[in-house]
């Protein structure tokens, strides 16, 4: 089975509402939980583009619909709006895996799930 599909199955086990492109070039987690009281939303759509060179190339960035603000109504750190995808405006969080070491077994080493978990950590624990 395609390596990307295997890794997307790992995400499907974690997130019930997951939309996946037919060509596996992107996915959207429909109700990604945000830390309560930290942003002006409790959940958000989360979009990630899977590059054609993945998993040899590390995943990079994730996007949320435009308008995300911190509880104090400021623009989150390392976040920039102005992206248009699928008829919707998105903002992009600059987020990179510091080390990227996928293994032969997709469940070992780094994969799309570990990347999204690192994004989750950034949203919950990083600078808002």
């Amino acid at each position, binding site marked *: 089975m395609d390596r990307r599909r295997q890794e997307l199955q790992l995400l499907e086990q974690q997130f019930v509402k997951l939309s996946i492109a037919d*060509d596996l070039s992107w996915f959207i987690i429909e109700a990604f939980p945000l830390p309560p009281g930290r942003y002006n939303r409790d959940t958000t759509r989360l979009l990630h583009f899977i590059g054609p*060179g993945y998993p040899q190339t590390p995943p990079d960035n994730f996007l949320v619909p435009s308008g995300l603000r911190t509880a104090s109504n400021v623009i989150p750190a390392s976040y920039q709006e102005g992206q248009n995808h699928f008829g919707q405006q998105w903002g992009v969080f600059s987020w990179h895996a510091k080390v990227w070491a*996928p293994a032969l077994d997709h469940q070992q080493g780094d994969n799309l799930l570990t990347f999204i978990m690192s994004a989750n950590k950034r949203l919950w624990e990083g600078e808002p």
Partner: protein
Amino acid sequence: MTASFVLTDQQWSELQCHLRSSMTSERFAVLLAGCCHERNNHVTLLCHKILLYNDPALVDDAFGIQVTPTGIVEMMNSAIKAGTGLIEIHTHPGAKGKVSFSAVDSAGHNEITKFAFSCLPEDSFYGSLVAGQRSLSGLLWTSASSVPVVISAFRIAGTGKSIYESAKKPVHFDENRYTRQVHLLGKEGQERIGSVRVGIVGLGGTGSIVARTLAYEGVRSFVLIDHDRIAVSNLNRLDGGTRWDVRFRRRKVRIARREILRIAPDADVQIVPKSLFTMQAFRAMADADILFGCTDNDATRLCMNEFSAAYLKPYIDMGSGIIAESGRVTEAGGRVTVVLPGQGCMLCANAVNTRMAGHELAPPELREVAVKRGYVSGSDIPAPSVMSLNQTMASIAVTEFKAVVTGFRAPVRNVLYDLLSGTVTPVRYDVGPNCLVCHSSLGKGDLMKLQTRYCNNR
């Protein structure tokens, strides 16, 4: 439909060693294989992995060797797990002339193909090979037809070296023209150079020199891929480029074809004036036996590296660069990396900046973000480049090409040239233990769907 079978030199050595381990009793192995559907309804089968079978998966009785039911299930499961087709090979050690399947083999084919297509994925295939002392015969079944296709040629990947072909076309070369070269390469080596189809991606500073040099060396079949047109700033190094070409904004592939044909009017030169990331370019690369990567970006390197592994095409990549600060050169030199499928790749050699490749391959909107943040260069400021450095790197690359194709010596797999110190350093690399390209993509051909991945939205 016609069919041929390709495997790497290393795979052939491993297989031969097993098959020839007995001159009296039959030997058996299973090849997990991908395929490449080519023009003219030809399919090339590509070896992904070899499973050597010994007792107890085999029963050797009066009718020859037979695989036990457990052994059959094991080989089907291996193919299903790898997502590949399956080819079994056994020997007839007594066959001195042209080897053929026995009546027992043929009866077995009916049963095993039925079982195989009940287990393997719908678009899969099953092949059967028999090896004699000096010949090979093979049949291929696909789910689309119950009538098998004869596998007519067995070749070593990228070398023009034939293991066995039922009707091999002779390759002739002008002995007077190449008399001094034959001293190094041998007659057979020169014939192989004349028989391989070479794909060159990037016909700029290094690619244009590689193309002309190969034409002088005796290559007669080319695929040239580059979407770019010549600019006046290329005239310091684009081999064959003229002011007239600049005036007419000629495509670099057209200039390269013209220069090749000046040297070798009989050469077959296919040009693809498109980006590598197009279906036309992928189809053209699939027709080549060996590839040269002469571009200056990591996305192309990453893609060609994976293509090389999946389609078992040896790949020679080169790069050169000069870094100057305040008018002073701080670093200058180049690299030539020889990728032999299955023996380590550009990623194992650390010769690709995967993060940069990721930025280069990102959707345009996200690439812009990376440019703004300074992760990737967005402007087309010409980098310093000189012809003598490019010629050095191209010459090393062509010498390694001859080593791969003719075997006049073992190829040096990674060469670094430091222009400032004038030193050439070979650097060793092996297959990375977690390299997905070497372990997972090898020989899987069309199954990797590289065209779909890399060419979509481009």
